[in-house]
């Protein structure tokens, strides 16, 4: 498994090949469509991350200090963003998740383009991931 840093570098490089924003969105949509479907049993009220406009489901697991995530959204673009987060964080040691600098949103310009991040629940997703990693590290889950 590559480090969080290395994966983020890959993502930044992927986006650098797509200069136009409609290409970048097309890529995000493709990532969303390709994402492994979230099993029905995980689409629970408990797993909903409240975004302003779209619904995101985030299922988290902790195995021996390593965190695993699965996600889904009713918005394809948000699903694509969730796929990027899964790629960066799922399967990583909880301690690395907590110490990671989240660079790729800024470096790809995604943060500026998705103007108010609260509209897509993205920040809420990241907060959930970090909160879960903290619990996993403390062996509370």
């Amino acid at each position, binding site marked *: 498994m590559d480090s969080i840093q290395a994966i983020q570098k890959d993502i930044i490089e992927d986006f650098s090949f797509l200069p136009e924003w409609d290409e970048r969105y097309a890529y995000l949509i493709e990532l969303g469509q390709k994402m492994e479907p979230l099993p029905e049993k995980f689409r629970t009220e408990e797993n909903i991350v409240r975004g302003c406009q779209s619904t995101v489901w985030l299922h988290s697991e902790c195995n021996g200090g390593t965190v695993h995530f699965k996600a889904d959204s009713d918005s*394809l673009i948000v699903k694509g963003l969730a796929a990027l987060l899964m790629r960066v964080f799922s399967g990583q040691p909880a301690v690395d998740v907590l110490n990671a600098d989240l660079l790729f949103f800024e470096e790809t310009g995604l943060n500026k383009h998705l103007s108010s991040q609260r509209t897509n629940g993205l920040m809420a997703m990241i907060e959930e991931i970090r909160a879960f990693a903290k619990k996993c590290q403390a062996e509370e889950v």
Partner: protein
Amino acid sequence: MAINIEKIRADFPILSTEINGKPLIYLDNAATTQKPQQVIDAILDYYQHYNSNIHRGTHHLSNLATQAHEAARDTVKNYINAAHDHEIIFTRGTTEAINLVAFSFGEAFVDPGDEIIVTELEHHSNFVPWQMMCERRRAHFRVVPFDENGDLRLDILENLLNEKTRLVAFNHISNSLGTVNPAKKIIKMAHDAGAAVLVDAAQSVQHIEHDVRELDADFYAFSGHKIYGPTGIGVLYGKESWLEAMPPYQGGGEMIDLVTIEKTTYNQLPFKFEAGTPNIVGPIGLAAAIKYLNTLNFDEIMAYEDEILAYGLARLREIDGLTIYSNAKRHASIMAFNFEGVHHFDLGTLLDTKGIAVRTGHHCTQPIMTALGIEGTVRASLALYNTKEEIDILVDAVRKVLKMLGK
């Protein structure tokens, strides 16, 4: 068409902006309108030449600012045909205007067991303040639903009205669907039952008829920024008799007559409802916007906007699978839609990459979305500077975006 759209567009500098390398197509006018150069100049002129506090200065600049501020009140009065300048209260916006009435009217006229009627078509700002007032005054909160076309069920309103009804609040145009409510008829029905009426004119004052005396509205509220003026300024019109009988909304400077440790007496209208240093430049910018509209022929504006709207709805209906939620008997300015199996956020976000500004979501009207059984819509909303060419670009872009989303 006598209206000169090219000239009007040239008056709004922002319309020549490019977004993502494409010319801006601004279709989010129900959220806020763009400003003509005349408004921008009036604001600049104030700060450059006569910025000063008002109503209390003994100096030249203060007199100039006071005169401009009060002349703006007169401009607003004339635009909505109020009887007196002091029936025009400046507020932060429609929301504050409604909250003012919900508080002060509630204190004076609403007792436990009384009833307030709103409609299911309301923006949260004409819904929640009345719910809060009903809780505070232990009054009953009644809601008139709308039918499958987005028209209010006036038969239900008729049944809800009774001798306990103190006030009916409704919007002249729904910000979410574009329904034009039959304001004169609703006001007559409410008055016949002995109830006062507040009209939320945030979406109507810039688009359709806006004569408060012709409507016979008791209260009428709107925002400057939706009528081509600046943000942070709104208007509450109230009939003198109501405003005189209502207690102040907020205490502070400006609204007082005499303050002693024992008791404070209040200033006369409109200052009784304008505590603190007001937004001085706001009314000046708003008046510039109204004066700008006054240079045009309002009947021509209405006819032109109707034509663009009818064209837009017809063009959108050409897209198979598109559901349009704007189907009321009379309808203005707003085109709300969804495409089956596509999230409104995705549609709106991708339209932005084409330089098209629309709004997506529940538009602060969650009761409407609940009634329609949806989470939200894409809303394209028009103003006097939009064109058929822009509609064509929108329709073309919607088709392209749907293709991107695999539809």
